[in-house]
């Protein structure tokens, strides 16, 4: 099995989904079977690839031979996870439990876990030479990498352990610990069998612990072997997120292969803005275009400074993706976005 995996990460709104699609399109060919997987709930990738009804299963992209696309549906992925890793009767109970759906829909680590599980299945299918993974938007870039462990902890029953004091509580514990004063108190406060319901749910979830822990180790290996690309713009907020991402990387054995600076401007503008504009006859036009160039030249200078800062600090290659006024929405313009970038070098692990 020889599947290369590229994980595209970064703050919200910087263009992760677009660049993931662009990368996949640029690399895909009849001899390099490529799958692009988006885990963003918005149907952005579908729009970008001019596809409709993109579901959990990979579908071939008509205009791009050798390219498939898939979108993650966290809820249905979790249903599949439950079916795969628990006893049929437990699975039946879990799937009708109101907490289960809420967990799959809302717990960010659960969404990332579902994405990582889907990614793992695609890797193990051996059907693709390259898989490009667009990561879920998150408050912290590391979420995707930490999700396998976090989810195993959750399923491992931190709450259950605390409530029952048992390492591996069985179902009969449930009835014993309802007699616990603490739980009684909690029920008084909460005004209902909330804790009991949660505990029952977690007991069922707990039966998947060993399987999911083993699975999470496999996912972590895949993620460590993948090529990680960090997408940002030069705006202060996403740059701050890149800094935080790198700082937190010590927690996991992942080293990004490159930072992709999206919406970048020609460096030449920075210097050009310092010289007077000579070739514009109309003084009003000259004044306006001078002011405009000073504005954009300032942006170009700020971008150069941000890039240099990131390159110095982290010693990873920086790849500039030009600022295009109209977001690309067809395979041709998506591919054009990465023209002039050595993709073989970028993706060489």
């Amino acid at each position, binding site marked *: 099995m020889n599947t290369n995996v590229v994980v595209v990460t970064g*703050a*919200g*709104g*910087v263009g992760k989904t677009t660049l993931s699609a662009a990368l996949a399109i640029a690399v895909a060919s009849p001899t390099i079977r490529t799958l692009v997987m988006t885990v963003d709930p*918005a149907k952005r990738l579908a729009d970008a690839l001019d596809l409709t009804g993109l579901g959990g299963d990979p579908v071939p992209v008509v205009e791009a031979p050798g390219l498939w696309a898939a979108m993650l549906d966290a809820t249905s992925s979790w249903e599949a996870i439950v079916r795969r890793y628990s006893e049929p009767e437990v699975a039946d109970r879990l799937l009708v439990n109101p*907490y289960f759906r*809420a967990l799959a*829909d*809302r717990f960010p680590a659960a969404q990332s876990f579902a994405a990582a599980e889907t990614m793992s299945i695609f890797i193990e299918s051996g059907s693709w030479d390259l898989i490009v993974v667009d990561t879920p*938007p998150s*408050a912290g870039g590391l979420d995707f990498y930490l999700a396998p462990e976090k989810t195993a902890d*959750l399923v491992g029953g*931190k*709450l259950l352990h*605390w*409530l029952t004091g048992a390492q591996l509580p069985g179902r009969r514990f449930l009835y014993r610990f309802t007699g616990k004063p*603490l739980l009684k*108190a*909690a029920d*008084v*406060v*909460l*005004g*209902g069998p*909330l*804790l009991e*319901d*949660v505990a029952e749910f*977690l007991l069922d979830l707990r039966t998947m612990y060993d399987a999911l822990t083993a699975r999470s180790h496999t996912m972590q290996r895949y993620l460590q072997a993948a090529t990680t690309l960090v997408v940002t713009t030069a*705006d*202060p*907020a*996403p740059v701050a*997120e890149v800094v*935080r991402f790198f700082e937190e990387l010590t927690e996991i054995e992942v080293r990004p292969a490159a930072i992709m600076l999206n919406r970048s401007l*020609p460096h*030449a*503008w920075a210097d*050009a*803005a310092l010289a007077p504009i000579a*070739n*514009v006859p*109309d003084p*009003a*036009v000259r004044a*306006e*275009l*001078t002011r*405009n*160039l000073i*504005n*954009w*030249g*300032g*942006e170009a200078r*700020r971008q150069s400074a941000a890039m240099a800062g990131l390159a110095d600090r982290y010693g990873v290659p920086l790849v500039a993706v030009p*600022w295009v*006024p*109209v*977001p690309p929405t067809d395979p041709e313009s998506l591919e054009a976005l990465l023209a002039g970038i050595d993709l073989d070098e970028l993706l060489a692990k």
Partner: protein
Amino acid sequence: MMLDRRLVLVSGKGGVGKSAVAAALAIVAARHGRRVLAIAMTEALGLASHLGVEALGAEPIQVHPGLFCSVIDRANALDQYLKLQVRAARSIPTTQLTKALNVLVETAPGVREIVTMGKPIFEVWEGTWDLVIADAPPLGQLQSYLTAPQTITGLVPTGAVREQAASLQSTLSDPAVSGLVLVTTAEELPIVETRQAIAQIDKERQILIAGVLANRVFEPLRTPRATIEQLDPSAARDAGLLHTDLTERQRVWLDTVPDDPQLPYLFDMRTPAEVAERLADECEALL
């Protein structure tokens, strides 16, 4: 007026500048002599950096005259939730109970959201502040927070928590007290997703939408495109064409939301704090 209430939630699609606008609105209100708490609901980094501080804690710190900021620490918020609101909790060692419930908060869906949604509302109830501005979760998660009170009343049949959820709901949905400000940019997905959110919130009547702000709007050049195109190749020509292209592209989307007030794209911003200060000037002019 957008800030003419006691509680203002600020949300928007990720990457549109939600935290910057939340910080800017807080700065504006403080400039007008109001005692303001800016509170980060789920993620502190954005609000902290836009208010020029390294980190936020559960205890409000003063960042400008009259402007305090903090982040919701869910353990702390839950403690307050129990102490403040639930009489039954008084007979129970709350630290012990809180310890058990903390795990619940992180685990049980709906509980995390109600505790997070409850905190800014408690701050309003306590009356320490003239205005609480909450940097709310991004658009994709907002709905689960706004519906948290209903979710809880659906899960919990009786008791103090249920009553509590009903009170939170009535404060949130009172247009004289609470309002939601949505931030967007003049791009397809932020505009479309903002419109979807507005439609849903209007239908569910969870909170009044006090305003929608279009952020990072480019000011059009007066020089026509054709004039720029005729110039000799140069950086000035290229920059003029890029600006014109971006402006025209934004115009397509702005035309679909003609009533939304606009905040300009700010050139040459170096720090998040500088962005918030400049946006505050712009908001002041706008409001």
